[in-house]
């Protein structure tokens, strides 16, 4: 049997879809016997439905394919623009396909290419990308961690629109496909996370830069941890950086004159990661001023992200509609057909309560000590 670890869906040239599957070359992954041969094998075929194509893959591959260990689904932007409804039913219905694989969009290359860029450590491309996204989510909050189930829920819910990470290939995708890519200290091609795809219904409408992803997650109360930098004082160039370890967001919805009011109150708790300023960190008021700096900056960024989504895409990717449904059910029932329109008009206010708890291994920065001692 062959284990399928990744699938890529592109628009076909003749038929509707081009499905690419990646199966692992398992002996190559054996710790003892593994060598330098290709860690995975990729095969594609065009057809009109994904369900049919998945069964037809043995036209080119030898063994029975097992889909239960699929780690990654890459969708090209072309297909995403056309809509996802058509093949998500297959994914959900299939007995074998699990619902815990990563779903990403491929920008500036075909989805199939993403499945073929090798990497020296985790040799199988889709497993590399899966781990990469997981770690990114844990460490920085850079991935919305969208699984099949989340997709289906947000596709169905009138108060939420789907999002999906976008990946891109840096470097030469042709060279990245060879095993030679695994032998270099600086591989010829890298797959990296490049942004967040915004959907409306099941169709891709645009993207947000990768820097915005933690704030999108924070507004949805799904952020685990992230890092934020702010200028030490208003108008100063030097910055300090804080690791936000605990984050939480509460959303209060209300309606005024048929305009939804979104009150977002965020609580964050963090530790100082580094500072460029010679402030005396043994003083309480410095901590307090840092806290208020974080509050200002965070509120600003949250607000800007939400407003940008409102004006540019008019698509409620934060799930405010769901919150409205919970808090003002009868109102939401009336407006759920035009919720996205209301969302784009909604008034947003953000309140942040930041707490700076710790400062790493040293209490004071050497800059401050230097300054004190003259």
């Amino acid at each position, binding site marked *: 049997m062959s*284990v399928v670890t990744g699938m890529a869906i592109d628009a076909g040239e003749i038929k509707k879809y081009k499905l690419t599957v990646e199966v692992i070359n*398992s002996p190559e*992954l054996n710790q003892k016997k593994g060598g330098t041969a290709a860690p995975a094998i990729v095969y594609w075929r065009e057809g009109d439905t994904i369900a049919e194509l998945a069964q037809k893959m043995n036209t080119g591959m030898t063994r029975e394919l*097992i889909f239960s260990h699929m780690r990654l689904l890459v969708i090209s932007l072309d297909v995403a623009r056309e809509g996802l409804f058509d093949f998500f039913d297959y994914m959900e219905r299939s007995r074998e396909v699990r619902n815990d694989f990563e779903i990403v969009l491929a920008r500036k290359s075909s989805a199939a290419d993403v499945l073929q860029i090798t990497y020296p450590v985790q040799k199988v491309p889709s497993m590399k990308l899966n781990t990469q996204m997981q770690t990114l989510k844990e460490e920085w909050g850079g991935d919305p961690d969208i699984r099949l189930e989340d997709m289906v829920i947000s596709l169905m819910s009138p108060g939420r629109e789907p999002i999906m990470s976008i990946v891109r290939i840096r470097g030469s995708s042709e060279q990245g496909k060879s095993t030679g890519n695994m032998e270099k200290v600086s591989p010829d091609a890298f797959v990296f996370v490049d942004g967040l795809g915004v959907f409306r219904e099941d169709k891709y409408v645009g993207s947000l830069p990768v820097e915005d992803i933690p704030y999108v997650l924070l507004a949805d109360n799904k952020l685990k941890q992230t890092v934020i930098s702010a200028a030490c004082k208003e108008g100063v160039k030097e910055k300090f950086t804080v690791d936000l370890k605990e984050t939480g967001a509460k959303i209060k919805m209300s309606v005024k004159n048929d305009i939804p009011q979104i009150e977002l109150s965020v609580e964050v708790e963090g530790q100082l990661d580094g500072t460029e300023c010679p402030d005396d960190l043994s003083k309480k008021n410095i901590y307090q001023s840092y806290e208020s700096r974080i509050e200002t900056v965070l509120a600003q960024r949250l607000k800007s992200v939400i407003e940008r989504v409102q004006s540019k895409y008019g698509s409620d990717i934060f799930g405010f509609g769901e919150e409205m449904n919970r808090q003002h059910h009868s109102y939401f029932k009336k407006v759920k057909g035009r919720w996205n329109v209301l969302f784009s008009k909604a008034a947003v206010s953000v309140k942040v309560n930041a707490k700076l708890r710790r400062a790493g291994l040293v209490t004071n920065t050497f800059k401050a000590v230097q300054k004190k001692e003259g």
Partner: protein
Amino acid sequence: MDSGERYRSGSDRPLTGSLEECRREFNELFGETKDLRLEELQIGQKQAMLCYLLTITDAQLLTQRVLQPIGQLPSDQSVAGTDELEMLCARMLGGSAHIIIQTNQDAVQKMLEGYSVIFIEGVGAAVAVFTEGGGQRGIQEPTTQTIVKGPKDGFVEDLRTNLSLLRKRIRNHKLRIETFTIGTDTGTNVCLVYMKSIANEGIVDEARKRLSDIHTNAIFETGNIEEFIADKTLTPFPTVYSTERPDAVSAHLVSGKAAILVDGTPFAITLPTVFNDFMVAPEDYYQSFLMGSFLRFIRYLSFMFALMLPSLYVSVITYHHELIPTPLLISVIAQREGVPFPAVVEAFLMEVTFEILREAGVRMPRAVGGTISIVGGLVIGQAAVEAGIISNTMVIVVALTAISSFVAPYYIFSISSRLLRFGLIVLGGVFGLYGVFLGLMVMVGHLCSLRSFGVPYLAPIAPFILKDQKDIFFRLPVWASKLRPQMLKPAGAVKQQESESPSPPPMYPSEGKSKRKGDPS
């Protein structure tokens, strides 16, 4: 208590007192056998004859108990009739086991049991003195049920020694020993041992009845008895417990079970037996109850491993890949790459190989013992994997299964998991996990239907008996279980009424600052 149909050899007429007649009859019965001794004696004024079988007689005992007392008799001692003989015996043989017999038939039987029989001219009775001897093994550590902490003595082949081991452990007048002679050809002594007014009368009666009903020619081991008295059911699970540890038998006796000991084997059986008995080692009670409980858990786990592991592996690898974490699946598949057989064939191959090795290991003469481990280890462990016939994972699975099957404190119990394992592998290979669990359901159903001397085999779990749970999956401290196992419906239910572990005394008890609960004021 004779089973009845043995030795209709020798006449059952009362003895006439004619030595010639006796001699003739013995020579006729025993024929030319070399170990028959018929020796002339003089007792007082009378001619007498000492008869015994040299091979089972202890010469020293014979001298001490028979020849010396006779030699000390005054030369004018008169032994005229049966009454006088009895009086003489009481005086002369006091302290030695002896019995007055009336018929030739009894005399023959006593001789076969190791007695020496003295006939006196003109007296219509004879006296048999116990002088049994012959080779026997000393008491040694049991070889099949070893423990680290606890008594190290084990039963031997001699029934009297075995009974003495029990008597010494249970110094209680309630310990009853009943003897049966079973086997028309061997006439083996079989003892039923139980605690009067502790064991359930019904169970003892049933055991007694079943023992009396045995009609066979030979008994050499408790295993022979076992098949005669076990309930008539086709089952791989043993329904009696057989052990060579006197401490285990004693523990069973005081918990209300009966034991059967057979002359000529170091294995005793106790009954009735429930499933949980096989998960209990005597050592559980000799070490901390925490450890005892933990080890029970390990034993149940190993039983499940020994039973199911290969079949689970086969079904997961063949049908349920989604149950294995991806990295593990990849490594398993990578190993299986190039293995020419499907997993079920592979599992069968390995299990059968292991069973062959195991049987060879048991039967082989000790001197060539080293060979099996080298050949077995190399053949299974290395060569087969390197030749690509089987995968590494399969070796791990089979090895873990094998090790698990040895955990059972009672060796014979592992036959059930050994046999059922093969059935489950086939079910797993054909139907996947569905098949394995169907098989398990049938097995549990079968276990529920079993009875051992009327006690449900799965008691006290099914039927559930709350009071017995203190010593099933967990062993609670000894003081905590106050009752004997209720599943056995013992005649005396209470084991220890007011048992409690002491609370700690004040730090320096002599100063007596604080009083504990229950201290005499």
